[in-house]
């Protein structure tokens, strides 16, 4: 669930408690007692870091200066810091334990983006390169000479599989890739260990299955969506903004599908990222074709087929090399934990980047580029027309990819080294949200539409939502499914624990 | 008594197929129409010179009838309908038509007795209710027309039909001016009123003589619109407007059934699929097999839900393979065989869809008449089934909507067609919400514009 929205709706203290409790659970699971821990390093976006530390987030919740002024919302200091963990509310027992916090670049661009810059190695390379974290906020950084231009495209969660009817975050038993094979589509499905397994061979026009897959799938990840769009466009089943099948949808196996509405959602996200790249190039005074190297990070950036991402426009069209570098945030936290020097280096980097940060929301270049993208994805404006428009607007040109870049898959999984003990994921780190619906007809639609099994409907009309599973305000499928419009976001209350 | 349709016979368009109607009709010698079979309906016209006397006409029709029955038996077809569309003389002199009917039926009975072939005879007297430039719908000529029906029913005709032409005087004026409200007024209001006037009497005659009051079709208007519209390259009338005239005519032609006619209606207005979706009664249709009479942009599509499969009309003359009625009749019967095989093997929905898809995107007219869309028009009609004006307007507006959506579904329109469609929709949306206002406004307008329009005399308006 979106942290910011949760904290604003149900209180920052509640959100803070959840973060701290999750950490406590982690320590307990590992058998670590407060006294035995000398040092903690954290990484994350500014919201996450603030929620943990108890720094007010009002300045992050509202981007507009007028509102900030009116309500006397001060911008918080989010520089690199070394603190005593015992100062954190609820962590008194950790007095004497050192807490290392990496800096944020600006408002919406935090340590994740720094991690991207530092861990990609782009800082040390003379090439014109761009790094992009393919997540909800799509942080991106362009390096030209020694200047680094950053931005965040608010691509929306479509690339992580949300806002798409059958979409889901990457998890076991979901479709993560699609390939054209023998006149049909072949899917790749993630196993319980997140390994890629051969899925079904099917006809996307009518959903006919030619060959069953080894694992049944329950959803499509963002990477699967990219692959569907790429293969759809190449087979001309997708002709923007339409899907030219009789159902106006690509039909997969296991009742999964991808329809025109999904296409628009995904297109907006892809368009936001390409518009972001154009905007950074504009700020740097270069052309998109000048970018030689692209780094892809984040879970989506790791599992995505880079060649397909390149074909649909998620990677600058003329790059020679693409590096898929995995979850850089975790790696950065590890660096900071081991070296305090690293932390202050990061602060220097953050400071040097601040001056050349581009706020896309208020950037005229981004606005023009993004409106072009909207028209391309939603109205079917021909690509050539989009190029003409960019030219008229004096913006850097994009083009269709002509050559395939060399793809370097540095990591296979977003957390490359799981250590000897392997990976276990903490369950139930969140809380429960609930409301009692007096006139509930118990139709059960809210449960049925939830792709995350986050919601339970009890026989007395009580709805219980698990915040750790729920996709929150981006999804709201359950809210929309309620016929009587009785289920309501604002009426949900946090269960006291 | 007139009983308006306010509900659909079919809840789901997918239920509709050829050869099966909700209310099959028994007719003639052993034939049941719409009961799991399609049957050819052969139409013909005598050579012009034979119309000079009753004797010549009778002789001509005897040859026609014998030729057809002979060929049906020779190739082994189980059933056939013969339709005689009168030349004027046969209706103007009711006893001429009666003599022809009598002679035809005698021959058919002989074949039925000898070979067991099921057959029925339909006669369609000409709508003779005019006097030079003027319609005379309710005067002497009307009595002659009724007399013709009566004598036909007495002389062996199994099914009575007519192609009534109420509203034609205003329609001819409106269609040449792309005046869609005028088309709506002429077909949807005037045509329907005249239908009610004439069909009450035809149904009574049929009942009195225990024959089938079959149905009408909007030959004078819908078929005219199609004819003026022509092929793809013709630009006299946008095909988007032609189809609006045709769907409006469904609202009009339905009136025969509402007056007690039982089907099968007639073919040349192409409104049958819409009628069937509403009334569930059998329909006759024509398409590729009527190319002897006119070219067609939906030759296969119209077979989708037909019960009788017709050739519109062919002049009687020799061909290499026999006479024209034999050649066209055999073609019709083979088409029916194919459909009947599909019905027997449970593949009728597939064949129906193949027929439909082969022409769905050929022309806007075919697109709207494709059965899922035709059904939608039907639904729009019954929504205001009690109000002749509103239901015709609904049909027209629904047609506009179907076409507008069609453009997203793969239907391609020219700018000429698109513009005409847009203008039509704007005109329709600007029309009043009630019949009285619309009729009185239209009366004022067309009394001024159409010299030959005499509302009092022809429609009691």
């Amino acid at each position, binding site marked *: 669930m*979106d942290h*910011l*929205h949760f904290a*604003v709706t149900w209180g920052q203290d509640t959100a803070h408690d959840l973060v701290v409790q999750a950490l406590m659970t982690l320590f307990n699971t590992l058998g670590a007692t407060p006294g035995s821990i000398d040092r903690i390093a954290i990484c994350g976006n500014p919201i996450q870091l603030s929620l943990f530390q108890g720094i007010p987030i009002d300045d992050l*919740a*509202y*981007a*507009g*200066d*007028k*509102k900030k002024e*009116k309500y006397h919302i001060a911008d918080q200091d989010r520089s690199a810091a070394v603190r005593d963990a015992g100062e954190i509310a609820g962590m008194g027992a950790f007095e004497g334990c050192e807490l290392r916090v990496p800096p944020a670049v600006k408002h919406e661009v935090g340590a994740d983006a720094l991690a991207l810059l530092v861990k990609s190695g782009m800082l040390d390379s003379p090439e014109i390169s761009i790094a992009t974290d393919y997540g909800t906020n799509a942080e991106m950084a362009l390096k030209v000479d020694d200047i680094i231009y950053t931005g965040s495209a*608010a691509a*929306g969660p479509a690339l992580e599989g949300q806002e798409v009817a059958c979409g889901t975050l990457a998890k076991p038993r979901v479709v993560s890739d699609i390939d054209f094979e023998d006149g049909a589509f072949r899917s790749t499905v993630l196993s319980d260990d997140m390994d890629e397994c051969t899925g079904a061979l099917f006809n996307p026009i009518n959903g006919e299955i030619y060959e069953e897959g080894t694992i049944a799938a329950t959803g499509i990840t963002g990477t699967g969506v990219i692959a569907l769009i790429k293969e759809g466009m190449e087979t001309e089943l997708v002709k923007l903004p339409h899907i*030219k099948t*009789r*159902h*106006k*949808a690509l*039909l997969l196996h296991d009742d999964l*599908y991808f329809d025109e509405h999904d296409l628009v959602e995904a297109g907006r996200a892809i368009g936001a990222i390409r518009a972001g790249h154009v905007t950074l190039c504009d700020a740097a005074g270069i052309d998109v074709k000048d970018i030689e190297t692209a780094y892809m990070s984040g879970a989506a950036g790791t599992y995505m087929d880079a060649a397909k991402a390149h074909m649909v426009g998620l990677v600058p069209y003329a790059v020679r090399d693409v590096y898929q570098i995995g979850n850089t945030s975790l790696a950065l936290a590890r660096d900071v934990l081991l070296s305090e020097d690293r932390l202050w280096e990061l602060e220097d980097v953050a400071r040097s980047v601040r001056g050349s940060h581009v706020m896309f*929301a208020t950037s005229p270049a981004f*606005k*023009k580029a993004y*409106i072009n993208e*909207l*028209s391309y994805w939603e*109205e*079917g*404006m021909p690509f050539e027309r*989009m190029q003409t*428009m960019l030219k008229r607007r004096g913006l850097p040109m994009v083009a269709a990819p002509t050559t395939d870049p060399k793809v370097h898959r540095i990591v296979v999984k977003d957390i490359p080294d799981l250590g000897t003990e392997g990976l276990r994921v903490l369950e139930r780190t969140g809380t429960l949200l609930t409301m009692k619906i007096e006139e509930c007809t118990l139709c059960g639609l809210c449960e*049925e539409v939830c792709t995350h099994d986050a919601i339970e409907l009890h026989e007395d009309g009580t709805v219980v939502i698990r915040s750790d599973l729920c996709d929150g305000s981006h999804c*709201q499928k359950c*809210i*929309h499914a309620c016929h009587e*419009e009785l289920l*309501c*976001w604002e009426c949900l209350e946090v269960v006291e624990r | 008594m007139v009983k308006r349709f306010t509900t659909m016979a079919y809840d789901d*368009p*997918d239920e509709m197929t050829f050869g099966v109607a909700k209310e099959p009709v028994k007719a003639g010698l052993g034939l049941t129409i719409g009961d799991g079979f399609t049957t050819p309906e052969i139409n013909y016209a005598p050579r012009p010179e034979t119309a000079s006397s009753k004797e010549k006409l009778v002789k001509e029709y005897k040859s026609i009838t014998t030729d057809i029955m002979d060929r049906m038996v020779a190739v082994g077809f189980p059933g056939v309908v013969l339709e005689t569309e009168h030349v004027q003389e046969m209706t103007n002199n009711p006893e001429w038509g009666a003599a022809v009917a009598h002679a035809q039926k005698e021959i058919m009975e002989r074949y039925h007795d000898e070979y067991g072939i099921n057959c029925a005879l339909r006669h369609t007297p000409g709508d003779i209710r005019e006097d030079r430039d003027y319609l005379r719908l309710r005067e002497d000529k009307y009595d002659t027309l009724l007399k013709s029906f009566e004598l036909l029913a007495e002389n062996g005709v199994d099914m009575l039909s007519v192609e009534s032409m109420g509203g034609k005087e205003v329609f001819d004026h409106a269609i040449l001016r792309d005046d869609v409200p005028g088309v709506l007024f002429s077909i949807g209001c005037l045509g329907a009123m005249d239908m009610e006037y004439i069909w009450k009497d035809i149904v009574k005659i049929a009942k009195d003589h225990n024959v089938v009051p079959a149905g009408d079709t909007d030959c004078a208007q819908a078929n005219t619109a199609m004819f003026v519209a022509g092929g*793809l*390259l013709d630009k006299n009338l946008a095909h988007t407007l032609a189809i609006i005239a045709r769907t409006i005519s469904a609202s009009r032609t339905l009136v025969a059934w509402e007056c007690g006619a039982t089907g099968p209606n007639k073919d040349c207005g192409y409104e049958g699929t819409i009628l069937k979706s509403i009334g569930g009664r059998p329909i006759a249709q024509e398409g590729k097999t009527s190319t002897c009479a006119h070219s067609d942009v939906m030759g296969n599509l119209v077979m989708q839900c037909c019960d009788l499969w017709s050739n519109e009309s062919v002049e009687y003359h020799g061909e290499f393979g026999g006479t024209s009625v034999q050649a066209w009749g055999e073609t019709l019967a083979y088409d029916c065989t194919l459909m009947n095989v599909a019905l027997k093997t449970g593949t009728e929905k*597939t064949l129906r*869809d193949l027929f439909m*898809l*082969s*022409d*769905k*995107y*050929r*022309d806007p007219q075919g697109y709207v008449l494709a059965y*899922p869309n035709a059904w939608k028009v039907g639904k729009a009609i019954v929504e205001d089934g009690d109000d002749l004006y509103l239901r015709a307007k609904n049909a027209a507006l629904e047609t506009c909507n179907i076409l507008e959506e069609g453009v997203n*579904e*793969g239907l*391609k329109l*020219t*700018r*000429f067609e*698109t513009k005409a469609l847009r203008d039509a929709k704007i005109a329709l949306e600007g029309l009043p919400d009630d019949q009285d206002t619309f009729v009185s406004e239209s009366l004022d307008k067309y009394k001024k514009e159409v010299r030959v329009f005499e509302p009092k005399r022809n429609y009691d308006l």
Partner: protein
Amino acid sequence: MALKKIKERSMALDIDPDDILVRYNVRLEKEITPEEAAEELYPDDPHLKPIAQAVFVGDEEGVVAGLEKAISGGMDPLKLIDDALIGGMNVVSKLYDEAVIYLPDVMLSSDAMQKGIEYCKSKATSDMKPKGTVICHVAEGDVHDIGKTIVVALLRANGYNVVDLGRDCPVEEVVEHVEKERPLMLTGTALMTTTMYAFKHINDKLKEKNLALPFVCGGGAVNQDFVSKLEFGVYGEEAPQAPRMAASILSGANVGKLREEFHKH
């Protein structure tokens, strides 16, 4: 369940007709360029046409130059707004509706027209009478204004006078402007989930001051359920609905009617 719905969307078999038939009439129609399509629609008057043309291609300087010439030739600036600028913009919105041109074209033309309107107003001696005023703003605290920018352009393209309050617009400022301008409708957009609650405050203040009017809310964060709970709220899912809503209001629609027409469920 959703898949079933999709399948039901079209039960019948369907095909791509291109391989089995040719609509020669469509094929013969030569591809018409946007400029050719526009050519048939411009006003005939030799003074008005170049201005309308400049609006169509989004040439701001051309618009002002054309107006200058026409005004010095004795034409009334206010009449030029209607005949030349809005006339040119009508061509744009018509061809946009027909998908001959696209949103970025409309944005360029809308800017050019706006420049022209401002120029004409500066030269005019009396006030103009637009077909209606709409106030647009981005929610307090939110700076994401692309949605609003599109809405403003489309409304202007359809001849409405738009008071654009910009982004991060305080609640009080919105209410003040409504009180002053008495517009046909008010629009608010928000992308950040945290900012849309400003709409509720606006709604309450409007109610307090008896300023009933349709308040169209949209944008990434906003959903119909939220908007339906506002007394004046109408949910706008897509920007092109804005001019259609304004037209409905002009022909008498109130909040209830608008919801009936534009809400999804």
